[in-house]
Structures are given as C-alpha cells and as structure tokens.
C-alpha cells in the first residue's frame, strides 16, 4: 500500500470530525463567495438600475418627485398599478440626464451632451434626445429608493462574511484538532510497536534514528495533516466554488477560465519536479552542515591539537557553498515560477477578460452588465489565492511523504505482542539443556550448551569477548531465543511463557547502568507502584549507596539528568544495584562494569554484590576474577562452549584454562 493511502487510512480514524470540518468549510466558502454576487446585484440593480425605464406614477412608495411629477422605476410598480408616461435617466461619467420621451433608446454608443441634447454616437449614426441635466440633489432624489435596498444588501454582505468567518474558524479548529489526534494515535501506535519489536532491532539501529521516527517524522506528518491537508481542502472547495459562481455569471467565459486548470496543473507538476530536487539537496546539506558543526564542537580539542582548523574550515566551506548554490537555484526557480508566475497568469486572465467583454461590447448591445464584470474581476483575483496556497505547501507535502515512508517502515517491522499475564515467583532453578544459538544464521555463538543452576546459587561466567557470556544473558531474558535445545526455569521451558511473564521475576544490572531522567528514587522504583518509598530507601541502604550518595542535598529526591550524567559511574552502578534489589527477583544477572571506579567505591560495590546475591540465583558476567572466586559454579566459556565448569578450587586443581588465567594474573603481579 502506498504511503499516501496509509496516511489517508490514518485520517479515516477521525473521519466524522473531518467530514464535519469539510461541511463547515463548504458553508464558509459558499457564504464567502456570495459576496461578489451581492456586489453585482448592488451595481446592476441599484447603481445602474437608475437607467431602467421610469414611469409617471402617483405619490406612492418608491416614487420620486421631479419637476412636480412623480416617477417610479418600472420594476418597482405593484402588480396592477397604473403606469404613466415613460421617462429615462442616463449617466455620463459623473453627470446624469433626464430624458422625458417614451421608448427612449436603450443607451448604447458614446454619449455626449450639448445644448440640451444628449447624443449617442453609434455605428448607424448619431441619435439625439432632448434632455435636462440633473442637479446633485435631483440625482440623489432619484437614488433615494435605492438607499434602503443598498443598506440591506451591505448588511447581508456583512452577515454572510460573519457566517463565513465563524464556519471557517469552526473548520480550521476542528480539522487541526483531528489532525493532532491522528498524530497522537500514530505516535502511540509507534511507541507501542517499539515495545513489541525484538531487541535486535535496537542493536541494529542507533537510538537517535528510532527516536526520530517516533517524534520528528510524525511531526512532519502532523504538518501534513494540519497545514497541507487543510490548505488542499480549502483550495479545492474554494476553486470549485469560484467556478460554480463563474458559470452562473457567464458560462462562456467560465469555460475559457477552465483552461486555467490544466495550465495550473502542468505548472505545478513542473515546479514540483525541480523544487523537490533542489529542496532535497538543500535539506540534506543543512543536515550535513549541522552534523559537521556538532562534530566539530565535540571534537574541537582534537581538531586543534592536530592543527586541522584550516582543513576543517575548507571542508565546511565546500558544504556551505553547495548549500548556497542550491539555495540560489531554488530561489531562481521560485522567482521564475512561484508568485511571479501566478501574477503573470492573473494579468493574462485580465487581458482575456477585457478582450472578451471589450470586443463583445464594440458596436453592439452590451453582452453583460457591469455588475457581472465586477463580480468576474473579483472571482478571478480570488481564484489565484488558493493556488498560491497549494504551491506553498508542496515542499511540506514532499517532506511528509518521506517521513511517512519511514514511519510505516517501522510499523511494518515484525513484533510480538506485550503480554500482561503474570505467574507467582518461581524459585529460580535454571537449566540450559543442549542450547545452541546464533545471531546470524548458522553462525553459532553458543554451541550445545548445558548447565544447571540450583535456586540460590551463584554462577560465574568467564571468557573473552565473543565467548558467549552476554548471549547467555540475552537468552535467559528472552531478549533473543535459542534455535536448538531448551532453557528451563523450575522445570518449565521458558518459551512456554510470554516474555514479559518470565522477566517479571528477573533482575538485571548492566555493564553500563542506564539511568532515566527523574530522581534517584524514581530510578530505583522505576515508578512501579509495587515498590514503596520505604522499599527504595531500604534497597539503597542495603547496597551501601547511602554512603556514596549521602552528600547529595536532596537525598532520595536528588534529580537525575539524562543518563545520570552528573553521577559517577560508581554511583550509577549502586543505584542500579538498588533497583535490582528492590524488585526482589528470583534470578539476577550482573554484568560487571569494566570501567575503573575509584577504590573506595569499588569496595562498596563488592560488598553490595554480596548483599544482592543472597536468596536468589545469580549469574555474574565477570571481568575481574576476584569477583567470582566465591561463586558456587564457574563456567569458563570459549567460543560458545563450556570448556571448564566447577568451583574456584576445583578449577584450580584441574590445572586447565582457568588455572592458566589465574597464573597469568599471578604472572602479571610478578612483572611488578
């Protein structure tokens, strides 16, 4: 399914509100587009209406007194009301003339007034009428019946504007609200989905990229729904409305104006083609430039120590120049094809318009009224607003589609449902039974591994990098699943439980302990309601963290920033020990930290490990031999196989690999 279609489907979740918004939009556009019609009516019926035939009448409503006689516009006579002699009023520039003759000329041709004679010069020769020029007062008197009507129309116009405004607000707000809801849904979907993804997804992809999909990419899509969609809807409805109005006014000219649509479309396609190419380069250069600045700030010491300032600057200038050049290309394109092109199109439309009406008007009866002309000009000017609006959103559309592609790619990754079933605490009897495991096909990192850990035992795992120590941890936690053999806890295959169920009674302390933003307390309890504050305090005390953290001003509530940045690695270690202790797991895995901590903290950590171990099956991935000397069982791993197994004393007596390692340690001492 295409990205566009899927984005559309997301929108369908909120289709009711979106349809509501569209209805409001239609009302709003309709009300707005009636405006020029009203103006047309005002001009044709009321301003020019004065040239309609007048008849002598009684002093009734709408009758105007002139020269002692009452006159009334023909179309204002009631049905059956008697009409007197006809008279006409003609306008010439700002001058008005009264012609008191029946069947007067309808008024085409160039007008001139001389010596009480009003002359119409037409192709068939001049036609003259006896006429009196009206004074300002008299003109106003003839317009008097129109004034209340005009006021009514103006008020109607305003009311329609207000209606249009209210509905426009309604649609804008509704549409934006649903757009934000759509994005919220998309974000929560993405987030729940990453909880389902296998852990190797995170091992493959840097955290920053995953985050960008959930937040930045969806933000770009939000722009799509908020800006792009509403603009497209608005433009679509608006353009349709304008054409409806144009067709009502003059179908022929409206048909000519339809030609604009394919022109606009072709232009949009061409513009988009180049703009998206340039935009793409500009955007990628911007991100390269930013990355380069960022990296330079981070590595400034190195750049300076190696005297690479100039070279760095040159590299930077190259990107900066490319960026600049493409920005100028884009600028050139925009100057040629954006607003500028719209305005030339508008001017050409005006030319067509004058040509059309002008040639129609020459030497014959006027095809249209002035009111229609006015309305036409107004509609044509308006026609170009929504078009510019669409063009301005094209770049956003492009960005949103690319972002959408990435979002759906993530959503399409296969995952496994998070389960909520729990079991009561198991004893922690762990058996690995002929377990083989590979991260990549056939490339086994654990080969036919079997061992058993009785409840409460401590198992030490030793071996060099790649020997399979960490894989054992990954399997036990079901971060990964083994391909062959089985792992049992209390006699039951762990694959029979959902992952979450099995992990519920396990604890982990990672080599590089991860702390979350919050407080020390929240990092121990992970805000889990089962872990009370007393429990947190007790746990911290039991691992000896209180000694290390005592100087912190706010104690347990001392804020922890991102990744525990202000804490030393020893402090982080102890907090993560306390976390494991507070959750009281029956199986604990400890990945010993390699980074050097100061000696005082180190001894506290050693003690804490002893505390942690009691009452649970503990696996220690050891980097220092001293840590596991007291373990019930030590597994020496080499290339995915257990080469030696037993207690420290047993392994020493064996005089094998472990013994060798130990000797090497002694050897190291002797070198000193």
């Amino acid at each position: 399914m295409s990205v566009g279609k899927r984005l559309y489907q997301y929108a369908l979740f909120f289709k009711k509100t979106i349809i509501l918004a569209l209805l409001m939009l239609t009302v709003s556009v309709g009300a707005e587009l009636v405006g020029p019609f009203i103006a047309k009516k005002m001009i044709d019926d009321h301003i020019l209406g004065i040239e309609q035939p007048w008849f002598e009448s009684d002093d009734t409503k709408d009758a105007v007194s002139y020269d002692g006689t009452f006159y009334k516009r023909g179309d204002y006579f009631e049905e059956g009301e008697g009409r007197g002699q006809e008279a006409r009023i003609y306008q010439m520039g700002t001058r008005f003339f009264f012609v008191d003759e029946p069947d007067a000329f309808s008024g085409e041709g160039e007008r001139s007034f001389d010596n009480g004679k009003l002359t119409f010069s037409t192709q068939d020769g001049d036609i003259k009428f006896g006429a009196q020029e009206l004074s300002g007062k008299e003109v106003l008197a003839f317009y008097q019946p129109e004034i209340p009507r005009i006021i009514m129309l103006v008020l109607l116009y305003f009311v329609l504007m207000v209606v249009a405004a209210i509905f426009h607000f309604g649609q804008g707000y509704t549409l934006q609200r649903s757009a934000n809801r759509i994005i919220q849904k998309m974000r929560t979907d993405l987030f729940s989905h990453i909880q389902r993804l296998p852990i190797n997804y995170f091992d493959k992809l840097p955290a920053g990229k995953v985050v960008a999909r959930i937040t930045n990419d969806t933000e770009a899509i939000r722009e799509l729904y908020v800006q792009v969609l509403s603009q497209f809807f608005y433009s679509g409805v608006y353009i349709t409305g304008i054409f409806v109005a144009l067709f009502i006014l003059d179908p022929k000219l409206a048909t000519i104006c339809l030609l604009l649509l394919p022109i606009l479309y072709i232009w949009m396609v061409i513009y988009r083609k180049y703009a998206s190419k340039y935009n793409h380069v500009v955007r990628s250069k911007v991100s390269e430039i930013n990355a380069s600045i960022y990296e330079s700030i981070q590595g400034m010491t190195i750049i300076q120590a190696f005297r690479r300032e100039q070279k760095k600057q040159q590299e930077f200038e190259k990107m900066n120049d490319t960026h600049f050049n493409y920005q100028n290309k884009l600028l050139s394109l925009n100057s040629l094809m954006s607003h500028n092109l719209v305005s030339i199109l508008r001017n050409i439309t005006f030319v067509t318009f004058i040509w059309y009406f002008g040639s129609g008007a020459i030497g014959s009866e006027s095809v249209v009224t002035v009111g229609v002309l006015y309305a036409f000009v107004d509609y044509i000017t308006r026609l170009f607003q929504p078009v510019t609006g669409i063009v301005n959103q094209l770049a956003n559309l492009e960005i949103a589609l690319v972002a959408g592609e990435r979002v759906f790619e993530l959503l399409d990754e296969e995952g496994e449902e998070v389960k909520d079933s729990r079991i009561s605490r198991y004893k922690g009897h762990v058996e690995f039974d002929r377990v083989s495991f590979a991260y990549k096909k056939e490339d086994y990192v654990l080969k036919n591994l079997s061992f058993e850990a009785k409840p409460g035992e401590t198992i030490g795992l030793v071996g060099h990098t790649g020997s399979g120590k960490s894989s054992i941890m990954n399997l036990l936690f079901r971060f990964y699943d083994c391909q062959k053999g089985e792992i049992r806890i209390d006699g039951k295959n762990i694959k029979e439980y959902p992952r979450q169920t099995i992990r519920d009674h396990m604890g982990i302390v990672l080599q590089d302990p991860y702390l979350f933003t919050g407080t020390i307390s929240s990092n121990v309890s992970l805000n889990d309601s089962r872990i009370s504050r007393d429990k947190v305090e007790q746990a911290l005390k039991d691992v000896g963290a209180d000694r290390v953290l005592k100087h912190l001003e706010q104690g347990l509530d001392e804020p922890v920033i991102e990744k525990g940045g202000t804490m030393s690695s020893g402090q982080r270690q102890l907090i993560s020990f306390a976390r494991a202790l507070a959750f009281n797991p029956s199986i604990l895995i400890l990945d010993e930290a390699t980074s050097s901590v100061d000696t005082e903290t180190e001894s506290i950590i050693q003690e804490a490990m002893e505390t942690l171990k009691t009452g649970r099956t503990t696996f220690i991935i050891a980097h220092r031999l001293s840590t596991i000397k007291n373990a019930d069982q030590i597994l020496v791993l080499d290339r995915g196989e257990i080469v030696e197994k037993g207690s420290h004393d047993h392994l020493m007596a064996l005089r094998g690999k472990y013994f060798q390692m130990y000797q090497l340690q002694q050897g190291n001492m002797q070198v000193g």
Partner: protein
Amino acid sequence: MFDIFYKLGWFFKQHWKRYTIAIVLLLIANIFEVIPPLLVGLAIDDIFQGELTQSILMQYVIILLVIAVVSYAMNYVWQYLLFGGANEIERRLRSMFMGHLLRMTPTFFERNRTGDLMARSTNDLKAISVTAGFGVLTLIDSTAYMLTLLITMGFVVSWKLTLAAIIPLPILAIVMQLLGKKIHNRYTSAQNAFGDLNDRVLESVAGVRVIRAYVQERADEKQFLEGTEDVYQKNVKVAFIDSLFNPLTKILTGISYMIGLGYGSHLVFTQTITLGELVAFNVYLGMLIWPMFAVGELINIMQRGNASMDRVNGTLSYQEEVVDIENPTNASALSAISFSNSGFQYPSSTVRNLSNVNVTLKQGDTLGIVGKTGSGKTTFVKQLLKEYPVGEGEISIGDVSIDQQTKDHVRAWIGYVPQDHVLFSKSVRENILFGSDGATEKDVMDALRMAHFGQDLQMLPEGLETLVGEKGVALSGGQKQRISIARALIKDPAVLILDDSLSAVDAKTEANILDNIRRERSGKTTIITTHRLSAVEHADWVIVLDEGQVVEEGTHDQLLANKKWYFQQYERQQVQESLLGEVRS
C-alpha cells in the same frame, strides 16, 4: 528594533549595488502592480458607456500585456537579488561562525552548551537571513507599497472613500500583532512539550533493556501517552489561535469592503466617482491587505532578527583566550620539556588544579603521571597543548617558554590521544589520516599495527573504508581508543601524549601497545597519564599528583620503595587487575 540593519551595515555596504537595484525594481514593480486594476476599471467604464472602440481595446490589451511581461521580468530580478542577499549573508555568517568556533578554546565550550551553539548556528542564522531578505521586502511593502496604493486610491478614486474604507485595516494589523504574540507563547510551550516527549522517547529506546528486563512496557506506554496528551493539548491551544487568524481577517476586511461598496455607491450617487472607479477601488482594497499584514510581519521579523543577531554577535565577539604573541620565538628543535613552579586554575574552578609543579623531561624520556581522578593529570598535559592561557611559573619546550611560541608551532610537536575518544563520521582511514595528510598506505598500516588494531580491522565490514563515528558502525570503547592512538602515531610526533587513553583496552593489549611504542619511538618523548600503574612501569620518571601537586616522584622502583600511595595502589591493582578478556586460550 531597526538596529539590525545597522548591525548588518557592513554587509549592506558590501552589497549596496545588489540592494539598490533590488529595491528600485521592487518599487517600480509595485507601481506596475497598481496599473492593471486601474485599466480594468477604465475599460469597464468604457464598455458600459459604449465608448469602447477597436483601437482603444487594442491599447488596453497591449498595455496590459506589456505590463505583465515587464513586471514578470522585474519581479524575477528583484526577487533573485533580494533573497540572494539573504542566502549570501547566511553563508557568510555561517562561515564566520564556524571559523570562530575553530579558534575557540575549551573554556568557551564549557561556557556555551553545544545545544545552544547549534541553535545559534541554525535558527539564529536563519532568522538573520530572513531579516536581510524577507525583512527588507516587508519593510518596503509595508511602507512604499502601502503608500503607492493609498495614494492611487486617494488621487484616482477618492480620499474620503479611501480613508473610510481603511479604518478597519489598522485594527486588523493590531489584532494580528496581539494574536501573533499569543500564538508565539503557546507555540513555544507546545515545542517544549514536544522536546520533553522527544527526550522521553530517547530514554525509552536507549534504556530498552532495562525497561524490558523489569517488565515496564505498560508503564512506559502509559507515560508516553501522557506525554502525547500534553503535546496534544498544547497544540490544540495553538490551533485555537491559529484558526482565529483567517476568520478575523475575513471579518475586518469584510467591513472594509462593506464601507467601500456602501459609501462608494453613495459617492456614485452624489456624482463624486464613477462606477469603474468604484470597481477599481475595491480591487485596491484587496491589494492593501498584504501590506497591512506586512507591518505586523515586519515588527516580528525585526524583533526576531535583532535578538538572533545579538546572540550570534555575542558568540562572535568572544575573544580568543590563547592569543599568539606578536613576535614569537619558536624553538627550532625539541631538546627538553620543563615545568618550573607551574600552577594553574581553570576559570570555572574554585580550587587550584595544578600548583608548584617542577618537572624536567629530556628528549626521548617517557614520563608517567598517575593520581586519583581530579588530581590534575589531564590539566598537566593540557598545559602543553596550550588550550588555556599559561598559569603561573614557566613551561618551556626546547628551552623556549611556550608563552613565546605560537600555538601552531607547539602543537606541531605533539601527538595527542585524549581521554574521551573522539572520532569523526568518516572512514577509519580518513580518521587515521587526520593525524597526517601526506601519510602513505604503509604508514596507515604501521600505525594500526602499533595501535594493535590489525585484528579488529579484519572484523570491520569494509575494512579501512568502514564508516565510524555518529553515523557509522558502532565501535567498542577500546576500538575507538586504538584508532585514536593510531591517529596520533601516524603523525610520528616528537612528543606523544597518552591521556588515560588505554582505559578501555585490557591489560594485555595495553602492554602490547606500550611495547610497540617503546620500541618504535626510541629517542622520542612520551607522556602517559593513567589509572593503571602497569602502564608506567617502564617510564623513565613517574610523578604522582594529588590535588594538583606532585606528592611523589621517581622511577617505578623508587616509588614502590617509598611505600606510599603509589605502592598501595600497586598492591591493590596486583590483586584486582587481571582482565581475562583477551587471554588467549
């Protein structure tokens, strides 16, 4: 508010031709904008009064076409020039900014957070660029264009009508301004909520193992939902104001049109204006809306641009901390390095980080520096790199005080491997060649061999061409350290500084690398700071620092005999320090 134009004066002066042509053309183009509606109005009058002839019609059409074409050309030119200026200043400032960063020393980077500097180099530069392009446009449009329109409306049609019809427009500008401020605040708060959400997701992803191990998926989802709800609420608040803009514009311009039509008709009745003029007037009214908005825009852009300019200038005006003296005396050969009564205190520090240090190091010697975290080991080596102004006492290289030598000259002697391994987003090869441009393939391989990276290289998907750093493959700390070491070794420097740069490799590898260095760098000076005492066993001289002072010194054996901190530490490490990691089985 318009200070920004003054602050950017140097740029406008350099580009005065560009701006003069652009502005003149813009002004002419604006006048041309006004003509078509006028012609349409006249044509309507002519049509209506039957005065239109074939030749008059042709005239209209030709004039309109000419105007259309000429203004198209002019619009292109001024747009290209004006916005081209904006692009140009963005490029110039960015280049200046980067150049400035490259001259700055650590104190500067401590005082300015990376995020802040990044914001300056992106958002603030953009804002300045907008000021130099769009800002100038709005300035012209809100003044000259508006005046052109008003004058046309006043002279050609009617002043009375013009004044009456534009009454709502300033109100509109003010309302927009107020709403603009409000939306800005709400938008900022929405952005902050979004930023929080972003941070939260980052933690959830980075801490995914912890979350899964402790079965906190549901809690995490719940927390995330709260975050998105917060973002939603704040965005809806923005949407509320945002949705007000268009309707309010409609109502207020509607009032304008209402006055234009109503009062305009009255003026037709009183024979003040013609119908065609009334039509043209309403077209102008429509054209006035943009310049009115431009006033509001102008204020925003100027304020933003000004604030950004100040921030960027604030950075650019930061003085270089370590300035080379005017007539440097650069030592010609490296004979010895000596610290005499050296003392130093970081600008941000409350205690003395180095005091009264006296050490002399002959050429070819290896100096070991040990001590607790924060005892001054790194401070000591940084003195040699001239990252900070020299403190008390004197430090000399090759018998000339480093005060008297240029930074460039001093650093040319040194190959530096820092504590925190910094690699760039480039290939392994490029990262190593960073140390020396002219190096050959063999040099690269030698450096890698010495840094004990040969085996690791085979594991990398594309060998030497493998991309590392932020965007590349994830390397272990030890691998990064070894590449950093290779980078320094390829320079074959007279002085090699290893600043605790073997902490992430195991003892065996460390011994290996140190052996290589000893063997292949005989006659050259090496300075090693370390936590692991085994690394300095072979040093010619070892100093033990504590709170910035040398508390013990001597050879390894002498220090052991001393039976003080060094001895105790050594004993402890003997027991503990045996990493099995790389033991060959």
